[in-house]
């Protein structure tokens, strides 16, 4: 059975049983080429897909999914989803009604290139790193591409599909100078294979990791912080998004719950999500429920304007749906950003403090419910308006909302980071953060 056949089979069965159902089918293709020691050490080629249903029975919602597309497996899915729905005591569930959303291709021929060229790209990146004698070990060098086709359909009339994808160049390596060792990573990501340049990525790695060699301990204290886009992007993708999710607001987990219309950040801070960006890596014509994509300003000059909604959270809070429904075929209805970014500012002038180049341990050291974080960081000491020397073995700690309120300047250049969703950020200067070290 094809994915479309599976979708139609499920919708037909659901109608016959008198159940409201929404079917999301995703199919993806992936190619990964890993280079090591001047040769290709691993190639992975894959196709994967599945079908997930959300059903509503008398206002109760249930989910189930399958990767096996046989009538037996699909029947099991409907039956399980039905049973799961009956466990709910809440009866406000519904499926949004909609219409034909069309078929969209956001990827085009971006990934078309001979396999050999892709192998050479991975090999060239590794060679570019090895050309520098300070590179002691190249742990991993990878070219990866992925294209995804998502198909949505419901008994309430929603029907649409879109295709998207990306090509990625990624490396992780260790540099050494004297006794000093630093492991770093670098990546480049694009919807066009031909936009990737291994030489550029190698230079970026050597620059970004090489500058950390010879790091000294950092004295514990409070310092002005200059968060590079990679560092702030990760914090924002995890903490910021959690706080903006209307689902978390309704479940009593967001510190921003009662802050609509209030100042929650420095007045130079504007936070936007735009799924319609032509080159956006997370662009989409519609969300997981079929709501058309549009630009949303969450925080405008420091003032919280709206939370991120799907149809369910919007109805419960009595506000307009922002079109941020998310669901994978294995998952449940949530809210997720598309291309989330901080509006760049007037520029940052280095004075005194610490440039934080990267943060580690976010899954454990950042608690989005309390808003508090204490994270291992890498960075550079700034003295007298200049980078003085690299620092290591320290953490940076604070409260995310306090940090937002104390932003004093924003860089002019937006950089995109795929570590925690697709998040864009300029350099962010914060008046003061707590650093723990020697």
């Amino acid at each position, binding site marked *: 059975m094809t994915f479309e056949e599976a979708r139609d089979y499920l919708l037909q069965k659901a109608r016959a049983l008198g159940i409201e159902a929404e079917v999301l089918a995703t199919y993806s293709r992936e190619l990964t080429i890993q280079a090591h020691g001047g040769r290709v050490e691993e190639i992975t080629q894959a196709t994967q897909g599945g079908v997930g249903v959300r059903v509503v029975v008398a206002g109760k919602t249930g989910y189930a999914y399958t*990767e096996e597309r046989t009538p037996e497996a699909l029947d099991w899915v409907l039956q399980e989803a039905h049973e799961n729905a009956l466990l*709910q005591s809440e009866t406000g569930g519904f499926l949004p009604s909609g219409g034909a959303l069309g078929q969209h291709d956001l990827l085009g021929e971006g990934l078309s290139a001979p396999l050999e060229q892709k192998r050479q790209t991975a090999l060239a990146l590794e060679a570019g790193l090895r050309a520098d004698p300070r590179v002691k070990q190249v742990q991993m060098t990878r070219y990866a591409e992925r294209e995804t086709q998502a198909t949505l359909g419901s008994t309430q009339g929603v029907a649409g599909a879109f295709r998207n994808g990306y090509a990625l160049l990624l490396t992780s390596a260790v540099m050494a100078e004297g006794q000093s060792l630093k492991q770093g990573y670098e990546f480049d990501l694009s919807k066009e294979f031909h936009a990737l340049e291994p030489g550029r990525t190698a230079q970026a790695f050597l620059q970004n990791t090489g500058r950390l060699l010879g790091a000294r301990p950092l004295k514990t204290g409070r310092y002005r912080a200059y968060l590079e886009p990679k560092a702030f992007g990760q914090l924002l993708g995890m903490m910021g998004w959690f706080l903006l999710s209307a689902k978390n607001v309704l479940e009593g987990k967001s510190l921003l719950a009662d802050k609509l219309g209030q100042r929650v950040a420095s007045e130079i801070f504007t936070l936007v999500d735009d799924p319609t960006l032509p080159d956006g890596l997370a662009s989409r014509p519609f969300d997981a429920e079929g709501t058309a994509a549009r630009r949303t300003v969450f925080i405008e000059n420091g003032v919280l304007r709206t939370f991120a909604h799907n149809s369910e959270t919007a109805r419960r809070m009595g506000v307009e749906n922002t079109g941020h429904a998310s669901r994978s075929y294995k998952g449940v209805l949530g809210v997720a950003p598309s291309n989330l970014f901080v509006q760049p500012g007037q520029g940052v002038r280095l004075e005194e403090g610490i440039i934080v180049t990267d943060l580690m341990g976010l899954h454990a050291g950042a608690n989005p419910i309390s808003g508090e974080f204490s994270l291992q960081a890498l960075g550079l000491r700034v003295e007298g308006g200049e980078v003085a020397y690299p620092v290591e073995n*320290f*953490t940076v700690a604070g409260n995310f909302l306090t940090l937002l309120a104390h932003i004093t300047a924003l860089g002019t250049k937006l950089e995109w980071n795929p570590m925690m969703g697709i998040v864009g950020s300029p350099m962010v200067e914060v008046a003061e953060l707590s650093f723990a070290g020697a």
Partner: protein
Amino acid sequence: MLAEALVGDVLQKARVGGADFAELYVERWRRRALRVLSGEVKEATSGLEYGAGLRLFYGTEVVYAYTNDLSPESLLELTDTLVRLKGSAGQVDERGRGGLDFRKATAQGLHAPEIPFTARDKRYRLERIREAEAGARVGPQIKQVQSDLMEWEQEVLVATSEGTWAEDRRVRTRLYVTAIAQDESGMQTGVVGPGLSVGLELFDRYPPAEVGRKAGLQALTNLRAKPAPAGTMPVVIGSGFGGVIFHEALGHLLETTSVAKKASVLSDKLGEKVASEVVTYIDDGTTPHGWGSQEFDDEGQATERTVLIENGVLKSYMVDRLGSLLTGYRPTGSGRRQDYTFAPTSRMRNTFIAPGSTPKEKLFEGIEYGLYAADMGGGQVRPGSGEYNFAVKEGYIIRHGRLEEPVRGAMLVGKGPESIQRIVAVSDDLEMGPGMCGSLSGSLPVEVGQPHLLISEIVVGGQA
């Protein structure tokens, strides 16, 4: 799950295409998840995952493909694609001729559930979860309680061109309770999440009310806790999930995935003293019903108990098939993968620091000012530099050898090889705790464990 003749055909076809070794991995999962928030079912979901991964070795070069179309046409075409990717199509190799004679091995049920999922209905689960919720409401400050119940059943077949045919069945259950406490000072959480390779008897081994109560008390402790101090100080790390620090700082550095590439700071150190002599470190895939236990690894090899470090001396790495080819070390049944979408690599199973002889109370004596990390969150390591970090979920200040006020938000950071030299005393109260470990071959259930132990100095990241 697949006919023997088809498996044989796929493996033979790969050999004819010039591969030195071919491995077919097939699995079917049934997963159920229940998320209950403040007594109400928020989300209930069930899933069926089904797919195959084919891995070919050409010397130490690997090609891997996966799909969830398991028809004979699809699998044979997949094999062709892989052979083409390697650029060796059309080669006919003598080694590929002749039939494959599989040596069949089936799981003995060492970790089989006593109460299978089918023995109780969904209402039963909901009742037990509501006990956890009630248990967590230890004070009016507890505003929300979320309970997640996860049930996993996995059937696995691994067959290789060397005649391996291993079938395993793995059943795991985990209950994860998050209590959220709130007052005018803010919002804090407490999290307790027991999990084992068992069925619904998990509820008997860990009564839900007790699990909930612990989560609730932890949330209250964090609510009255002050921000952790910042600086370098002695730290006593609690038993059980406290072992996560050495999972990060030591365990990951002993996987051949990084050792073979000399990308670990502990490469080429067998027989050398790498830790303080009070440290014995073991990775055991055979612990009955352990969260990280299984009878076979994901390369079809029987799991074992591997002593990694004995009295400070490095005895063994954790070795998968590719790691063994690259290093010559004996495979240790450590090849694991999240599912068919990943090729296996060397991974941990149930890893712990063996009990020592110092009574727990003695660890605190003589500490003028330090931190007691009673319970831990997760962490992370960069094997190439050994730099690691991990978060303290529940912590207290030690002053003049005594436990004093609770502190929250502490993050411990350091370099693994230095920290293991600084373990000065290990107590005798070994406990284990379940976690999910993310690495190259995906996210896997593992146990970490240790007795209480004392590290002479470590950087504590808190508020300066």
